[in-house]
C-alpha cells in the first residue's frame, strides 16, 4: 500500500512496530543477557548492562553436566531424521508430482491425516515396543520416531516445490533425446535442489525443538537438549544464570537457521495452503 504518507506518520508507525517487536523479543534478549551474569546478580534487582560480565556459567554448564553429549544428541537426531526422511520422501513426492494418478490427491490427504494423530494416541504402544526392542533412550530410536513424525510434512513440502517445476522442460529434454537417467541428473535435480534444501532446513528446525517424544522416550543417555533443559525444572536447579547459559546455547543454532527460513516456514507449516 504505497500511499503518500508523511514522515510523521511513518515515524509514528515505526515507533509502534519497534516497541512491539522489542517487547516480543525481550525474553530471548534477557536470557542471553542473564547468561553473562553471576548467579548472585541474576537474581538481584534487574540490571540492564552495568554488571560484571562473565563467561563462568558457560564453563560450569560444560563442566558439571554432559552438555556436549546432549548437544551432539540434538544434532544427530535432528539431522539424521531429516536425511532419512528425505531419502524416503524424495522419490514419493517426485512420483506424485510428475506422474499423478486419480489416487494421488487422496493419498496426499491421507498422509497429511497421519500428522493429525495426537501423539498420546500411540504413546503406549511405541513406548512398549521401544522397551522390548531396547530402543528406549537410544539415538537410533529417536531418529526413527522423528523420521516418521515428520515424514508427512517433508513429502508435502517437497511435493509443493516439485509441482512448480514445469513439465514442458521434461518434454523438451526428452525431445532432445535425454533418457530417464540424464533427465533426472541434469534437468530435474538442479531445479529441485532449492526446494529440497528448504525442506531440509525447516525439518531440522522442527526436529530440534520437538519435545513430546524426546521427553517421553529418552533419559540420561540419548536425551537431546529439549529433554536436558527440562532437568533444570527441579527446584534445586533454580540457577538462573546457568539455566540461561544452557538455554542460549540450545536455541542459538536454530534461531539463526530460522531467520533464513521464514518463507519456507509459511509454506511448510500450512501444507501449501497459504503462500
Amino acid at each position, binding site marked *: 500500500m504505497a500511499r503518500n504518507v508523511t514522515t510523521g506518520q511513518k515515524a509514528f508507525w515505526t515507533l509502534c512496530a519497534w516497541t512491539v517487536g522489542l517487547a516480543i523479543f525481550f525474553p530471548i534478549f534477557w536470557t542471553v543477557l542473564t547468561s553473562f551474569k553471576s548467579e548472585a546478580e541474576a537474581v538481584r534487582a534487574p540490571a540492564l548492562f552495568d554488571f560484571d560480565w562473565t563467561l563462568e556459567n558457560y564453563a560450569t554448564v560444560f563442566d558439571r553436566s554432559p552438555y556436549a553429549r546432549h548437544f551432539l544428541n540434538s544434532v544427530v537426531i535432528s539431522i539424521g531424521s531429516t536425511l532419512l526422511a528425505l531419502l524416503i520422501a524424495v522419490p514419493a513426492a517426485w512420483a*506424485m508430482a510428475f506422474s499423478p494418478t486419480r489416487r494421488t490427491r487422496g493419498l496426499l490427504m491421507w498422509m497429511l491425516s497421519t500428522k493429525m494423530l495426537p501423539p498420546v494416541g500411540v504413546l503406549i504402544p511405541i513406548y512398549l515396543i521401544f522397551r522390548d526392542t531396547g530402543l528406549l533412550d537410544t539415538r537410533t530410536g529417536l531418529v526413527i520416531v522423528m523420521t516418521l513424525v515428520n515424514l508427512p510434512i517433508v513429502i508435502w513440502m517437497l511435493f509443493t516445490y516439485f509441482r512448480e517445476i514445469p513439465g514442458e522442460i521434461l518434454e523438451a529434454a526428452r525431445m532432445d533425446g535425454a533418457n530417464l537417467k540424464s533427465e533426472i541428473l541434469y534437468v530435474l535435480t538442479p531445479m529441485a535442489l532449492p526446494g529440497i534444501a528448504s525442506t531440509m532446513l525447516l525439518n531440522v528446525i522442527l526436529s530440534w525443538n520437538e519435545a513430546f517424544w524426546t521427553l517421553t522416550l529418552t533419559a540420561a543417555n540419548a536425551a537431546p537438549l529439549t529433554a536436558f533443559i527440562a532437568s533444570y525444572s527441579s527446584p534445586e536447579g533454580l540457577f538462573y544464570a546457568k539455566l540461561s547459559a544452557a538455554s542460549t546455547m540450545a536455541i542459538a543454532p536454530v534461531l539463526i*537457521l530460522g531467520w533464513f527460513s521464514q518463507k519456507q516456514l509459511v509454506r511448510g507449516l500450512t501444507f501449501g495452503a497459504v503462500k
Partner: protein
Amino acid sequence: MATDHSRSTARLMVSPSVLLLLAWMIVPLVMTLYFSTQRYNLLYPGTEEFTGLANYTYFLSDPSFTEGLLNTLLLVGGVLFITVTGGILLSLLLDRPIWGQGIVRILVIAPFFVMPTVSALVWKNMFMNPVNGLFGYAAKAIGLAPFDFFGQAPLFSIIMIVSWQWLPFATLILFTAIQSLDGEQVEAAEMDGASAFSRFRYIVLPHLARAITVVILIQTIFLLAVFAEILVTTGGGPGSASTNLTFLVYKESLLSFDVGTGSAGGIVAVVLANIVAIFLMRAVGKNLDL
C-alpha cells in the same frame, strides 16, 4: 505419457512412504485400541484380562477427565484468541510503511524458534517467579504486591507462555496473506469515503478469512498436544488445575503405569483430534487442484 512402465515405477517410488506411514499409524493405533479393552498395569504383570469398556467408563467418569477436558478447551481457546487477534493486529502494523520492517519481522518471529522447554522455564523462573522474577520486581517498583503466577493462576500462566510461542506463527502467516491484498482496492474504498474500520471489516478481513482458518486449524492440532510446557512448569498441578488431556494420558500411562486406562484416554484424544482434522483437511483440500 503415463505408460504402464512409468506407472509401476511411480508406484515403486511411493510405496516405501506409504508402507512406513501405514505401519506408524495403524499398528500402534490398533495396539492402543486393544490395550484400552484390557485390564493392564505394568506394575502388576500377569493380571491382564479383557474388561470391555470398563477403562472408558473409568476414564470418562473420573473427575480429572472433566477437568482435563475443560483445561484443554481453555488452553486451546485462550491461545487461539490471543494469537489470532494479536496476529491480525501485528500483521496490520507490519504492513504499515515503517523503517526497518525486516528487522522488526525477525524480532517478532524469533519466539517460534525457541524450544518449548526453554521458553517455559525462562518465563516461569525469570519472569513469573514472584520473588526473583522480572514481573515481581516490576510490581514492587510501582508499589504493588508481586503476583504468584503459577500458584494463583497456573493455567493462565501456561496460556501466556504458549501464546508467546505461537503468536509469531499466526503473525507470519497472516502477514504473508495480507501482502497479497490488492492495494488499489483499499485505496478506492478510501477515496469513496470508507472509514478505516469498514475498510478492515469489509476488505481486509474477508481477504484474510482463509489464512485465519488455516492458522486456527493448524494451531489447534499442535495446541491439543501441548505437553512439555506443562511438564516443566506445573507438572499438571496444583491438583490437576493445569492438566490437559495429553498430560492426563501421560500421567495415567507413564507415571501410574496403567496401560488400560491410558490407552482409553489416548483413544478419546484421537477422536477429539479427528473432529478438528476433518475441518482442516477440507480447508487444505480445497486449495489442492490436481
